[in-house]
């Protein structure tokens, strides 16, 4: 048994090593004064200074966050509305149809979403740029929010709503005082997911971005195609740290969800 354990540990260590090697490799060379991803010469923070001095890049970072926050907020609202709408459908067939249609954008490859949105925006005459990117990010985040919120709605006992109505609550009050507080964890999780999907997206944005407007992923792609530049390394180190903060944040939100009275799934 001992020997077997050793091999399994080696395998796991190997998996982790391979998973993390590229990330740490990038981070390590971001401090290299040598100017390339080989032969570490000496420690420098020049590339970080370069990143912070690059106004074009900073504007792109700002764009990326504005798009992410706006699209996450709007898609959360739409997604909650959608989840409630699906939840209200009583008969099985239409409900399944709605759910299938909802999931189409989740299972579709990014290239298809990008290409079809490009056609759509050109047809209805939306200029490619900020608006088209924002709209497409909203569009592909909505189904994710729906999927995160729907289980919470199904968990909610209908007697809760009946009680509120009996006590004279208007439908607006039922929504604001009973339903929304109950599904709050799902809403937060959905918002968070929408945020990360938007920050992470490359392919869809690449199709609908047009000239003049760029997000971080698209910018990294065009820079990476020109070859290695260590300011990308510095930038990715910063993004990596930011991602860790986001993940830890999400982890705690999830933990709170798990602690809620009715455990969902395996929790």
């Amino acid at each position: 048994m001992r020997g077997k354990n050793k091999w399994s540990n080696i395998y796991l260590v190997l998996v982790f090593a391979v998973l993390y090697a590229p990330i740490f490799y990038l981070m390590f060379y971001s401090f290299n004064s040598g100017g390339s991803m080989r032969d570490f010469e000496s420690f420098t923070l020049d590339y970080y200074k370069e990143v912070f001095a690059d106004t074009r890049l900073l504007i792109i970072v700002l764009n990326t966050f504005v798009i992410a926050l706006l699209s996450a907020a709007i898609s959360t609202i739409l997604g909650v509305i959608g989840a409630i709408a699906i939840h209200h459908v009583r008969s099985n067939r239409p409900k399944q149809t709605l759910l299938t249609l909802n999931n189409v954008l989740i299972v579709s490859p990014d290239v298809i979403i990008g290409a079809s949105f490009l056609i759509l925006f050109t047809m209805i005459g939306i200029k490619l740029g900020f608006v088209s990117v924002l709209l497409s990010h909203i569009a592909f985040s909505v189904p994710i929010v729906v999927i995160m919120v729907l289980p919470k709605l199904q968990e909610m006992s209908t007697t809760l709503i009946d009680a509120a109505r009996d006590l004279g609550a208007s439908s607006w009050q039922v929504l604001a005082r009973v339903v929304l507080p109950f599904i709050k964890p799902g809403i937060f999780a959905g918002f968070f997911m929408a945020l990360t999907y938007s920050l992470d997206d490359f392919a869809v944005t690449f199709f609908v971005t047009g000239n003049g407007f760029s997000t971080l992923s698209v910018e990294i792609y065009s820079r990476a195609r020109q070859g290695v530049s260590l300011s990308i390394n510095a930038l990715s180190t910063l993004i990596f740290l930011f991602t860790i903060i986001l993940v830890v944040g999400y982890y705690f939100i999830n933990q709170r969800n798990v602690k809620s009275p009715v455990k969902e799934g395996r929790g």
Partner: protein
Amino acid sequence: MSNSSRRFYLVPYLAWIVLFVVAPIVLVAYYSFFDVEGHFTLGNYAKFFTPVYMRMTLSSFWYAFLITAISLLAAYPAAYLLTRTKHKQLWLLLIILPSWINLLLKAYAFIGLFGTYGLTNSLLEAIGIGKQQILFTDFSFVFVSVYIFIPFMILPIFNALEEMNPTLVYAARDLGASAWTTFRRVIFPLTVSGVKSGCMAVFIPALSLFMITRLIAGNRVITLGTAIEQHFLVTQDWGMGATIAVFLILAMAAMMLLTGNRKRGAVNARKK
């Protein structure tokens, strides 16, 4: 719930579905019948069945299959071993963490790692194999794709293994089954749903990859995704691009029917 308030919820949501789910698919199908000059034609479909496109489709499927198979082979033992560790939720989080990092950055890292003077070549030289051309080969393309997709394969398998009742394994062993038989007859059949959703989560994106083919494979590998991107953004032949997209959508629908209607692992991946 009164009818009017029900409509209040249903209308904006249905509007979203019509505008961003139904309309794009219809438009893709519509565009596939037009050539570059905007004339109605079936030529795109005829072109799709010529050897050039057929070979591309086949090789795209072959690469996607390879990527899925290798991911599965690497992921299953990893997922199994993860369920055996202490603090497994923490380890699982660490496995998923790289999948949250922007894909482009990971691909970019491999440009450095696999470069002529990169770490991999230094290692190869150190153990006496000598420098190899790694970047811009099929190997690097498959390796990087597996690297990117493997968390989405590990996660559903891990979940399926966790849901399995461990007493079944003990029972099999008690009844004299060897470790291999236990795996083949008990563990694997019980976790096959996880394997299926993992394969779904890898195969379809692998069919439509495009930035990795450009950055890592140096345009050597053309997948359906690359072809679509090429037609839409470079040659501006939207009709042909839409035709390939139609076939990709059909392939996707077939895959979904084949493996049962399951949502993509990626969503589950991030949900946990």
